[in-house]
């Protein structure tokens, strides 16, 4: 018996070990995947204390330091190994990049902002609304009771997200702005209704999540006219699907830029929400916009109206078709609008 016990102890058993560890790993992956995408799985929300603790981390400082680091030029010999590691880690498709030669990009920030070859993103002519970015659809649907779902079952307030609005004399709403200020809409229940121009319409939303390896420029999803830019400085928490399921009102807490205006069916808005790594947002037709800067007052927002300010909005070099009128900035479907940057 002692002889047998010794044999049992001294001989490793690869099959049970593989079964146990492999099963555990698969179970973990299944749970993680289900909790990310399964609509039936109930979300487990962070408590207000946990959110406060997360928000107390200096994510903005870390983000800016990360941006500075990635703005440092790399020696030519180091560029290929560093970018190759990034490509391998995040699954970047360099065959789509306008410049495939890795030595061309001076630093990781420049590599992150890489442009695509002209023909690789055809714009769907049949659809009135197209994707503004490469990424993953986190959620979509109708907006009910002025509450929007960031993921299934986790909502945020439309009013907190867009900021206060003003009713206009002509019945149309561009949120607030110097040209459209008659009366503040204070009732949360009517916030959604006041945004819309017709009772025969409904309010819809789509959330697109951009992973680190994705192309990080965003384009106009339709033909529309931007009347107002509203910049909300804020936290820079991660916006990955797991955190979006965990932190309620995440999109209202993070730094964001809301472009709002009108399209053929009424109110239209595009909001770029920043994150820890990707903290700054650039809008090509708005040279005044500066995000993720040290001066930051909690709960504040800054408006810039494009209405009757046509002369002040400059057309950037190489951006054709962008028209600045005294009634807003005209954007065409598929046209580049802006980009996210590291830090």
């Amino acid at each position, binding site marked *: 018996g002692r002889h047998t016990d010794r044999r049992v102890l001294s001989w490793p058993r690869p099959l049970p070990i593989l079964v146990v560890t492999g099963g555990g790993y698969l179970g973990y992956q299944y749970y993680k995947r289900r909790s990310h995408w399964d*609509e039936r799985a109930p979300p487990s929300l962070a408590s207000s204390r946990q959110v406060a603790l997360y928000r107390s981390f200096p994510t903005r400082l870390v983000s800016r330091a990360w941006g500075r680091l990635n703005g440092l030029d790399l020696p030519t010999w180091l560029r290929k190994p560093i970018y190759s590691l990034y490509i391998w880690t995040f699954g970047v498709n360099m065959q789509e990049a306008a410049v495939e030669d890795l030595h061309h990009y001076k630093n990781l920030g420049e590599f992150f902002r890489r442009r695509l070859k002209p023909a690789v993103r055809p714009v*769907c002519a049949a*659809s009135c609304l*197209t994707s503004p970015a490469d990424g993953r659809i986190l959620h979509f649907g109708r907006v009910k009771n002025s509450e929007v779902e960031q993921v299934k079952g986790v909502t945020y307030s439309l009013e907190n997200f867009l900021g206060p609005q003003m009713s206009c004399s002509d019945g149309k709403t561009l949120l607030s702005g110097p040209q459209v200020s008659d009366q503040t809409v204070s009732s949360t229940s009517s916030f959604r209704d006041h945004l819309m121009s017709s009772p025969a319409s409904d309010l819809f939303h789509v959330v697109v999540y951009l992973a680190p390896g994705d192309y990080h*420029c965003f384009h106009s999803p339709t033909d529309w006219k931007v009347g107002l830019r509203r910049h909300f400085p804020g936290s820079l928490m991660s916006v990955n699907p797991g955190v979006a399921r965990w932190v309620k009102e995440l999109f209202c807490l993070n730094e964001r830029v809301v472009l709002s205006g009108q399209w053929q069916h*009424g109110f239209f808005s595009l909001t770029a929400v920043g994150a820890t790594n990707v903290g700054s947002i650039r809008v090509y037709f708005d040279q005044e916009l500066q995000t993720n800067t040290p001066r930051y007052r909690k709960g504040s927002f800054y408006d810039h109206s494009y209405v009757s300010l046509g002369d002040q909005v400059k057309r950037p070099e190489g951006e054709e078709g962008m028209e600045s009128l005294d009634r807003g900035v005209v954007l065409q479907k598929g046209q580049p609008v802006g980009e996210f940057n590291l830090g």
Partner: protein
Amino acid sequence: STIVLLFEAPKNFTFCLQPGQRIRVGEGLGSL
């Protein structure tokens, strides 16, 4: 980073999407 679109559309607007779906710039999101 994330892009959120909020828009008014006729009630018969329909999305042609699945949650978790990969999407690229210019691909259709929905139609009337």
